[in-house]
C-alpha cells in the first residue's frame, strides 16, 4: 500500500527528509553565525584590533589558527567580530525593508485606486535600479557610515517586500472573513491589524530570511568598496579587499572572510528555502 499511497510525480517521504535536512543545515549555519556575533568577545582568541608587528602575514599556526594579516592581527578573531557587523547590518536592513515594505504593500492593496497606483509606481522606480548601484547612490547621498549602510540596504529591500505584501493582501481581501469583519463593525485600522496582517505575515517572514542573505552580501560589497564598515572595524567585505592585495603571499587573508561570507549566505538561503517549503501547504505532509 505504501508505494500506492504517494501519487506518481509527487515524490514524498525520501525527499521530505532531505528537505528538512537542508533546513536543519541552514539552521546550524545561521545559528553559528549568530552565536559568533553575539559572543564574539568570549569566543575570539585575540582582540580584533590588536597589532602585532612581530607576527605579520603569518600562515595558520597553533597560536593563530587562521593566520595573521598585514598588521599582525589575528584573522580568526577579526572574522568572528566581522560576523557581528554583518548580522547587525542585516538585521536592521531587513527590519527597515520588512516594516516599510509591509506597510506600503498592505496600505496600497487595501485602499487601492490612486494611492495604490502611486505607491506601486514609486516602488517600481526603486526596483528599476540595480541593487548595488542604488546602494552606492544612497551611500553617496547619506554619507559613509555603517548606520547609513543599514538604511541604504533597507531601502533597497522595500520594493520587494511591498510587492509581496500587496499580493498577499489582495488575496486575503478576497476572503469572506474580511467582509464578515465589516459586518461586525470593524474599522479599517482594526481590519488591517487583526484580519489582514496575521494572514500575510508568513510569506513575508520567509522572504525576510532570504533577504538576510542578500543583506549580508550587500553589506560586504559596500564595505569592500569602502562605503560600509570603516577600518580598523573588521568586516568581511573590507577584509576581503585587504586580502585581494596579498592573494599571492597570504591567500588566507582573502579565503577566510570569503568562506565565512559563503557559509553565512548559504545558511540563510537554505533556511529561507526550508521555511518556504515548511509553510507551503502543498508541500506539507
Amino acid at each position, binding site marked *: 500500500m505504501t508505494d500506492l499511497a504517494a501519487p506518481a510525480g509527487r515524490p514524498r517521504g525520501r525527499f521530505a527528509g532531505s528537505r528538512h535536512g537542508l533546513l536543519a543545515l541552514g539552521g546550524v549555519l545561521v545559528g553559528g553565525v549568530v552565536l559568533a556575533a553575539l559572543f564574539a568577545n568570549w569566543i575570539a582568541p585575540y582582540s580584533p584590533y590588536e597589532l602585532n608587528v612581530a607576527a605579520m602575514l603569518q600562515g595558520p599556526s597553533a597560536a593563530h589558527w587562521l593566520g595573521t594579516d598585514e598588521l599582525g592581527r589575528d584573522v580568526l578573531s577579526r572574522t568572528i567580530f566581522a560576523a557581528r557587523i554583518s548580522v547587525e547590518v542585516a538585521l536592521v536592513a531587513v527590519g527597515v525593508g520588512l516594516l516599510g515594505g509591509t506597510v506600503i504593500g498592505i496600505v496600497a492593496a487595501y485602499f487601492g485606486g490612486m494611492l495604490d497606483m502611486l505607491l506601486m509606481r514609486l516602488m517600481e522606480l526603486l526596483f528599476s535600479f540595480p541593487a548595488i548601484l542604488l546602494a552606492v547612490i544612497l551611500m553617496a547621498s547619506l554619507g559613509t557610515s555603517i548606520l547609513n549602510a543599514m538604511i541604504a540596504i533597507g531601502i533597497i529591500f522595500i520594493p520587494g517586500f511591498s510587492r509581496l505584501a500587496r499580493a498577499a493582501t489582495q488575496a486575503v481581501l478576497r476572503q469572506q472573513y474580511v*467582509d*464578515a469583519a*465589516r459586518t*461586525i*463593525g470593524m*474599522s479599517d485600522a482594526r481590519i488591517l491589524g487583526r484580519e489582514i496582517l496575521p*494572514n500575510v505575515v508568513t510569506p513575508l517572514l520567509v522572504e525576510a530570511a532570504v533577504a538576510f542573505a542578500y543583506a549580508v552580501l550587500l553589506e560586504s560589497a559596500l564595505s569592500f568598496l569602502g562605503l560600509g564598515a570603516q577600518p580598523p572595524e573588521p568586516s568581511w567585505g573590507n577584509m576581503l579587499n585587504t586580502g585581494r592585495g596579498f592573494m599571492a603571499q597570504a591567500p588566507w587573508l582573502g579565503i577566510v572572510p570569503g568562506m565565512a561570507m559563503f557559509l553565512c549566505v548559504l545558511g540563510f538561503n537554505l533556511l529561507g528555502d526550508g521555511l518556504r517549503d515548511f509553510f507551503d501547504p502543498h508541500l506539507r505532509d
Partner: protein
Amino acid sequence: MTSSIRTFATERAAPARAAPAPTPTLAIEGLTIEHAGRRGIACLVDRLTLEVRPGEIVGLIGESGSGKTMTALSVLGLLPRGVRVADGDIRLSERSLVRMSAADLRAIRGDRVAMIPQDALRALNPVLPIGEQVGEPQVIHRGSSWQAAKAKAVELLRGVHLRAPEQRAREYPHQFSGGMQQRAMIAMGLALEPELLVADEPTTALDATVQAQVLKLLREIRDTHGAAILFITHDLGIVAELCDRVYVIYAGAIVEQGAVEAVFTRPGHPYTQALLRATPTVRTVQTELVSIRGHIPSPLELPRGCRFADRCPHRFERCASEPPLLEVAAGHAARCWLLEPGHG
C-alpha cells in the same frame, strides 16, 4: 401539490405571534438599488418595501440574482463598490440608515444589527481562536478588555449549545464542524443583543440534520432575546418551518407578501404557485422534478409591465402594464392582475 406544503406549514410549532408593534425594528420603504456598469444602469432592487417587527422572523425568498442579498447588504450599509441605494429609505427602529455617516453605520453594525453569513467557515478568520472572534464585538463596541471579551465569548458559545465552550473557545475555525462554525457565527452575532439579525442563507452549507438544529436555535433566539430576524433564503421548506411572514422577491421586486400560512395555502402570484409546485416533498411522490421554464430577466433589461409575464402560464393583455400589489386577503397581497376585482 400545494396541499402537501400546506400540511407542512400548519404542522410547525405555531409561535406566539407578536402583536403588531407600533414601530417595526426594520422598515424598508421603496428601496431601489442600482448598479452603474459599462452596459448601463442595472436596477437590482426596485421599490422594495418590507417590515420586520420585534420578535418576528420574516422570510425573504427568491432565486439567485433576485436581489435578496443586495437587500441584506443594504441594511448593513455594505453594498459592494459601484452599487448604490438610488431611492427609498431603510429605517432601524425609526433611525434612517441610508443617510447615515460611515462611522455611525459602523457603530451600528455588530451592535444593533448583526449578520449571519452563508458560509461560516469562510467568514471566520483562520488564524485567530474562535473565542477571540466571538468576543471581538465587545471590544469594538463596548471597549471591554480582551480578557472580559473572551470570558463573555465562552458564555455566548454555551448559549448556542456548544459543548465544552471553555475549551472550544481556544480552538481555531478549522477544528470546528460546519454546524459548530455556524453556531459560533450566531454567537458572535448575538454578542451585543442586536435588535435585528440578518441571516443570509445561513443553513445552505449545512447538511439536513445540522440545518434543523440551527433553525431551532434561531427560533430559540427569537423567543429568548426577542430579536427580529430577517431570514434570506431560496428554500421554501425553511420558510414554512421557521418564518412568521414571508416576502417573495422576483427580479428585484416583491411579488407576494403575507403570513406564511396564507401565502402557502393560497399563493396569489403565479410565481409563488410555480415555486410551491417546484418544491419536491416527501409526501408527494413526484415522478418528475417540476421546474419553471425560462429564466429570471436580467436587471439590465427588465420587461415593461409584469416581470414574470414571460414565464407565466396565465399571461393576458393586462400584463403589459405593471401590476400593483393587490390584496388576496387581509395582510396578504400579490403583484398580479389576476387578483384585480372583477377579473375571472
